[in-house]
Every structure is written in structure tokens, then in C-alpha cells.
């Protein structure tokens, strides 16, 4: 989300003259902070469950909860990996040269949960379980692979297309293999800049916003469940 959000806010600032201050972090951390009065106007979460919970707690501006994108996951290896994940898919994870596989912590990271679900669906979870190492979030999982400490990782497509990882090899895991990674947003009820927050959310949902999100590795709700787009 980091890369897409940078671009989205830049475009929005140019269009409207409103300044966007973005704070990046884990959805769970922000959730706890916002329950304790953190002064945010708008909350984009990698898991729509958190905004839903905030709405249930009466902390969201009514009617603003929305699913703005759907996350995709990929198996990613460095460019110099022996195996070609794009051709062999799941198989590379079983290869002896892959000693460690990095994923985000499934206990609290939605991308980690999706990775485990997909591994189970592919029938390889039992075979690779002992190889798994857990990053605190998806970026850290990627860092384990980039530093060479893990040989493959299951990371967000949005991360895999980012400048630092673009050159690696990747294979998009079919989206029907894991529960949809519904990215959700809300405007915060006590937002100081409620109108501009609403405007920014509308911009993200607009065609221009979606074009940026699509380019940076996100899909959209309507497409999930239908045939896979390549």
C-alpha cells in the first residue's frame, strides 16, 4: 500500500491543493491506537475487519465504510534464484534449495493468513510447514528473502511490483486459493478534516484512483470470484 498511497496522495494534492499526511503501519496497531483516540481522519486497512470493528464501536463516520481494493499475493524469489517460480509455481517451495520460506505472521497479518490458506489449498502446507519463517508484516517477510536468509516468500503483489522488488521472479497465486484480501477504509467520526477526508476516499475509489491501485498490484471487489485476470 505504501507505494500506491504515495502516488494517490500526490495526485490528490495536485488536483485539490489539500495536503495529505500519510502514516504507515500495521492495521492492528492503528486499530488499537484509534480506539484510544489517535487523531487520524481516514483509515485504510489491509483487512476490512478492522474498519468494520471501528464502525461497530461507533468510531467511524456512518456510511463511509467501503472496500476500496482487493489484495493479491505472489510467490517471490530473487532474480538469481535457480528455480523459475513463474513456470513452476508451488513446486519451487518443495525444492531442497529452498530452505526457508518467509510469510507474514498469520496470527495477525491478513497477508500471512492468505498465504497459509493458499498453501493448504495447494496441498503443500504440511510439506513446507517446517520451512516457514514469519515476518511481523509482509514487508519484513520480503526483507527476509531479499537479504538471502529465506529463499522464497509469499508477499503482496503490491510489494512485488515495487521498485525494490520488481526485478525478482514472481508468480501470482490464483485468487480463488485464499479468502479475498478485502482492503477496507473508513472516515473517522472525530476527523478534524472530515470533508477533505471524504474527498480523498472518493478519489481513491474513482477511476483515476483505481488506475493507480491497479498499476501497483491491487485488484477490485467486482473482479474477485470471477475468472482470474492475468
Amino acid at each position, binding site marked *: 500500500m505504501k507505494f500506491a498511497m504515495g502516488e494517490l496522495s500526490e495526485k490528490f494534492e495536485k488536483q485539490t491543493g489539500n495536503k495529505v499526511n500519510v502514516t504507515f503501519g*500495521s492495521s*492492528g*496497531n492503528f*486499530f*488499537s491506537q484509534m480506539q484510544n483516540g489517535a487523531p487520524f481522519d481516514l483509515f485504510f486497512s489491509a483487512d476490512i475487519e478492522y474498519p468494520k470493528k471501528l464502525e461497530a464501536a461507533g468510531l467511524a463516520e456512518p456510511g463511509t465504510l467501503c472496500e476500496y481494493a482487493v489484495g493479491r499475493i505472489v510467490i517471490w524469489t530473487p532474480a538469481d534464484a535457480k528455480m523459475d517460480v513463474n513456470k513452476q509455481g508451488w513446486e519451487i517451495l518443495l525444492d531442497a534449495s529452498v*530452505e*526457508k520460506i*518467509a510469510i507474514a*505472521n498469520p*496470527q*495477525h*497479518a491478513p497477508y500471512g493468513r492468505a498465504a497459509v490458506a493458499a498453501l493448504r489449498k495447494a496441498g503443500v502446507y504440511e510439506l513446507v510447514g517446517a520451512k516457514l*519463517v*514469519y*515476518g*511481523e508484516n509482509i514487508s*519484513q517477510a520480503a*526483507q*527476509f528473502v531479499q*537479504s*538471502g*536468509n*529465506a529463499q522464497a516468500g509469499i508477499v503482496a503483489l503490491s510489494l512485488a511490483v515495487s521498485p525494490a522488488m520488481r526485478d525478482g521472479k514472481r508468480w501470482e497465486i490464483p485468487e480463488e486459493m485464499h479468502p479475498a484480501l478485502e482492503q477496507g477504509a473508513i472516515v473517522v467520526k472525530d476527523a478534524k478534516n472530515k470533508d477533505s477526508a471524504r474527498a480523498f476516499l472518493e478519489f481513491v475509489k474513482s477511476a483515476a484512483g483505481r488506475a493507480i491501485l491497479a498499476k501497483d498490484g491491487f485488484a477490485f471487489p467486482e473482479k474477485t470470484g470471477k475468472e482470474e485476470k492475468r
Partner: protein
Amino acid sequence: MEALWLSMKLAACVAAILLLIGTPVAYWLAFSSWRGKFLLESLVALPLVLPPTVLGFYALVTMGPRGPLGKLWIALFGHGLAFTFGGLILASVLYSFPFAVQPLIASFGGVDQKLLDASAVLGAGGLRTFWRVILPLSLPGVVTAAVLSFAHTLGEFGVVLLVGGNLAGVTRTVSIDIYDHVQSLEYAAANRMALLLLAISFAGLSVVYAVNRRVWTPWAAK
């Protein structure tokens, strides 16, 4: 509980290793008259001011198969250092280094020069003077070094997070476990663990201050 036990084990190993390697380093730093000594003193103090994420990131890269240490380790043992208990020990030794060395330097340096001169006049060599004069007089510093490096390793988070990989029973220490509970919104479980950690840390620090204030001497007074 597994996480707490793992953390205790890690902290005990790190404290033991730090006493072993910290003692000669502290001795040298306390008594050497080399002019460039301040450079080494700065190096030793560096983990105090560097963010754990920086230390952890460098540790991760150094331990990786392209890093010097990682290469050596793989050649020796056939597997990498990251995501292992050994890797955690190494990273923690670096991270807690000043917590062991600085109290030792302070107490070695605080020994009365007259006693050292007397020992030398009576014919004792450097090593004998160290064992018979400096070390016995520096016991509070040794206790402080041991307890502080133990407690600091127990509370370590950033470095473990970066090089550990969160493996149950191997690298999932108590601070990581607490963080996971908080992230999963399991506040009650996080609270239980956190209180336990707080109690242990408080007890440890109390030992340090009690010993230094001579409220309590764990060894017989002579």
C-alpha cells in the same frame, strides 16, 4: 510460557557469554593508556544509541548467505544463522554488550590505585592482581553487568523481531509473544505475559540497586 522460558534461556546464555568476553574487554578499557582508546569506547557504547532496527537489519544482512558471517557459518555448519537460537544469541550479545562492559569498566577503574601498587610491590603479576584484588573488589559491578545484560536481553524486541523469524520454541521470545497477542487484540493474554515480565525485570533491577547500595551483599563480607 514457552516464550518466557525461551527468553530466560536466551538471557542466561547472553549474560554468561558477556561476562566471559566482556571482562577482558572491560579490563583493557579500564587500564590501557592507549590514546586511541576513546574510539573503542565509542564502539562499545554504540548499541546504546543505535535503534534496534538498525542493529537487527545489519545482523540479518551479515548473517545472510551473502554476508561474511553467514558464509562462514554455512561453511562450518551447513545452515544459516538467521532464524536460529544461535543467531539470536549472537545478535543479543552485540545488542547487550555495553550493558555488561560499562559497569565492569566503572568498577575495575574504581579500584584504589594504592591497592594495585601494593599488590605489584608484593610481587603479584597482572593476572594475579586481577583475580585477588580487582575482581573481589568489583563484585557489585560484576553483579550489575550480569543482571543488566540478562534483563536487557529479556526485554529485547527489535533485534529479535528482525532476525528471529518468530519460530515457536526457537526464536519466539516473550516480547515477540506479547506483541503478537497485542496485534491479535488478545489484550488479556498480552497483559498476563507483560505483568510477569515486568515483575521479573523489577526483581532483577532491585538486585542491582540493592547490591550497589550495599543493602544486600550476596557474598560474605570479609
